[in-house]
């Protein structure tokens, strides 16, 4: 059985402050400060963008700032989700994902 519809599993610290962010209009809850790519994966959002030439589905791949696959719009600017800490009220826009 595929676990929880493919969402990554994350354990936040007992004292972590959970905050809400918006992903293409949808509310997602995550611990403040968690890398955004992990927060999205834990919410089951693996498909982050489509490749510009082939339109193929892409998601976070290296989780260490190298591959650029997780570059999405955060509060209007293109950011690598794996390098961007979650903040309350963050507006996230995926790229080319319906």
């Amino acid at each position, binding site marked *: 059985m595929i676990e929880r519809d493919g969402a990554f599993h994350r354990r936040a610290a007992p004292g972590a402050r959970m905050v809400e962010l918006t992903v293409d209009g949808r509310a997602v809850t995550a611990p403040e400060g968690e890398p955004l790519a992990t927060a999205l994966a834990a919410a089951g959002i693996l498909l982050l963008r489509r490749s510009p030439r082939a339109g193929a589905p892409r998601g976070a*791949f290296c989780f260490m700032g190298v591959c650029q696959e997780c570059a999405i719009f955060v509060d209007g600017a293109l950011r690598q989700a794996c390098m961007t800490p979650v903040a309350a009220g963050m507006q996230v826009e995926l790229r080319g994902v319906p």
Partner: protein
Amino acid sequence: MKSDLIVLGGGPAGGNAALAAAAAGLSVVLFDEQPAAGGQVWRAPWAGKADPHDSPERREGDALRDALASSPVDLRFGRRVWSVGRAFRVDALGPDGNEWVEAPRLIAATGAHERVVPFPGWTLPGVIGLAAATVLLKSHAARPAGPVVVAGCGPLLAAVAAGILKAGGDVAAVVDLASARDWLVAVPHLASRPSLLAQGLGWTLKIAGRGVPVLFRHAVRRVEGAERAERVVIAPVDETGAFTGGSERSFEIGSLVVGHGLVPGGEVPRLFRAKTRFDRLRGGHVPELDADGRTSIAGLYAAGDGVGIKGAAAAVLNGTLAGLAAARDAGRLSESEWRKRAEPARTAAAGLAPFSDAIAGLMALRAGQVASVPAETVVCRCEDVTRGEIEAAAVAGATEVNQLKHFTRCGMGPCQGRMCGETAAEILARSLGVEREAVGQWTARPPLRPVPLADLLGRFDYSDIPIPKPAPL
């Protein structure tokens, strides 16, 4: 601002280089894009991570972070270095916009990145790197969705599988390019670092104890799925990594974790056109260094996995030696004082060589791996360039990798050729029937990482732009 030394990278090499140089009296500025020191191998957990357990990496990382915090090193974390100029000037984007530092000496310790040899479906969401999984486990308190297949080669395989199990995940299989015999051959050398050997055996036992199948001499044939990875098909390979035609097995998966070793970054020495050579065992092109980490460019030093894959223990020592060399070259350490500090590190580094070679050998690229990439499979993820297009460029007359880039856009995307570079070069060399060395390496270009133009701009008035004299009419 000016300082005596700039260190790029706060991992085991850069951190120890900064400490050694600062202890010898140099003023040191250390830049890293992560929020804390440790690099990838000793990566710090993010602040909100639930982290009851500890590990040798965690302890070593904490020790480095503590040592740096109580040192006089000017620590600049969360900085994206985008320009490294001669003399040396480093420009970085941080919380307050662009900042720059000048120093007569610079140590590049920018680390390595992972090599993943492409297979059909490797670009699907739900396929992540082996090193990515270590980041999730160590730093993010997260694990990929199960069932997980862990595939590839090298010591991270067992570590990641064990880590996922420990975090409560479900590992469907471990798929190892190496044979059990390859490991047995490596073990005596690995035994030169008993603590790490024990760690490796611990991982293996953990996997065995949970009944996870370990498929030696197998590799991923393809991943299937529409919008994400749903199924992985594996098949047996020979000692070169080429598929033997033996029977395939498939696993339904939540995630595939896959990695085939590490590639030294080396961007900074290449940017300065320091002398390099190709070293297959060390993962790719590496700068030519003396025993203390001096490159062929005066004042430029390099250390750590960014100059050839040797692992964290070697990085600590080589970083220390580079820091001491910078201090000595700056005239802050006498010959005898330098010798006193450097000799132990030099001796220890020599003792590590068998271990480093064994680990690197398990991760080195095998000839059959690249030969097995199908023609229609994407090699350059940023620009969706396939193996077939790279081969067509060879037929059209591309004889080296920078020409390949022009012909196909391979390596022109935002990862700046890091993910595809070594694979594309191997494919080009094979197509031309020449050695890998003959097709060269990407010319390094600034910025070191892509940077949003808006961040570069800062606040400005039009009248502030220093517009030079117009061209002649």
